[in-house]
């Protein structure tokens, strides 16, 4: 079974302000989504784990695309997340195949990325929107970087498709001011603090 990609989408968002002071450096969020054929649609397949290996090159390609869109400077990228939307003839477990190829690709390319990549997934119809969680790449508890980004691909996923998405960001929420662990205070030992 080989991977078939139907469509690719990238989005770059630059947030300058949200009613408060205009940021010196806009907060950047980039998302990459791929609409792929779900080889397991329409029936129960027990052995699906092998498909993670087929998704690995796609994960790397999407992670590289995000780094390029964000200005090719990995030192500025400090947030990430991932998600999957499975079409109606698929199973939630199919979306779980994205955890390894999506997450490891980003952590391989980003320095000091000890934190778990936050994620979400669901089964849904064409046009389903998914709120992908974002956290700091090196310490999950950094409060200024708890964020999210909504992803959807018009016209997808069809019943036998999956939308696989990765998100990276540069900088905290544009007007972050609710305290907690700061990015400057990260110990960087356990991926949490």
């Amino acid at each position, binding site marked *: 079974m080989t991977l*078939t*990609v*139907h*469509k*690719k*989408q*990238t*989005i*770059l*968002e*630059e*947030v*300058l*302000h*949200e*009613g408060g002071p205009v940021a010196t450096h*806009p907060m950047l969020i980039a998302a990459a989504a791929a609409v792929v054929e779900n080889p397991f649609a329409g029936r129960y397949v027990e052995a699906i784990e092998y498909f993670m290996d087929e998704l690995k090159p796609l994960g790397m390609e999407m992670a590289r695309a995000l780094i390029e869109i964000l200005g090719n400077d990995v030192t500025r990228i400090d947030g990430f997340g991932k998600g999957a939307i499975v079409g109606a003839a698929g199973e939630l477990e199919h979306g779980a195949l994205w955890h390894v190829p999506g997450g490891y690709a980003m952590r391989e390319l980003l320095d000091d990325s000890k934190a778990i990549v936050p994620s979400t997934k669901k089964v849904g119809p064409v046009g389903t*929107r998914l709120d992908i969680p974002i956290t700091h790449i090196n310490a999950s508890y950094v409060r200024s970087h708890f964020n999210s980004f*909504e992803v*959807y*691909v*018009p*016209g997808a996923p069809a019943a036998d498709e999956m939308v696989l998405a990765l998100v990276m960001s540069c900088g905290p929420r544009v007007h972050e001011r609710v305290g907690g662990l700061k990015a400057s205070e990260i110990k960087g030992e356990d991926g949490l603090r």
Partner: protein
Amino acid sequence: MKAIVRKYQTAVEETLREIGKDIDPPTRKATAMAVIANPFAGRYQEDLSLLMDIGEELGDILGRKAVAALGIEPPAAESYGKAAIVGSNGELEHAAAILHPKLGKPLRAAVEKGAALVPSVKKMGDLGTAIDVPLGHKDAAYVRSHFDGMEVRISDAPRADEIVVCVSVTDSGRPLPRVGGLTHADVEGKDGLR
């Protein structure tokens, strides 16, 4: 700059396979969007020239962002379109002031030429309202393979006092065009129609 921009968003969509057939090279389209404050929200303003100037600024900024997102040189752009969503404290005419008088000239500079009308849509909307930006060939409106559209939305815009302004640019037509008509190769590009 006259526009007060809250955020920009640029979306690129690339189609590699459609109904079991490979699309080679893939078709690609981009939409650059700006979420701006509506200077005339909540009141009737007779003179809309400020919005016309904002349209001129955004035609340049968004046109260049869309072309850059496709990674192409300006002459490689093939079709374009524009749209605006006005938040509930504004007026549909605000979108018209941004889109129609002055946005086109800098957009045409960004795609190098653009003899054809820039197709457009506008509507009132709320946070997360989607809009289908119409697409037409940049030099010859009758090119049938390039009649298309691109759906975009920003989840947190427009707020009531905001306007979302969209500019779309492509480097290709539909994935599998086969309904005849004028083709990209046969464009004369003089009158904007054929």
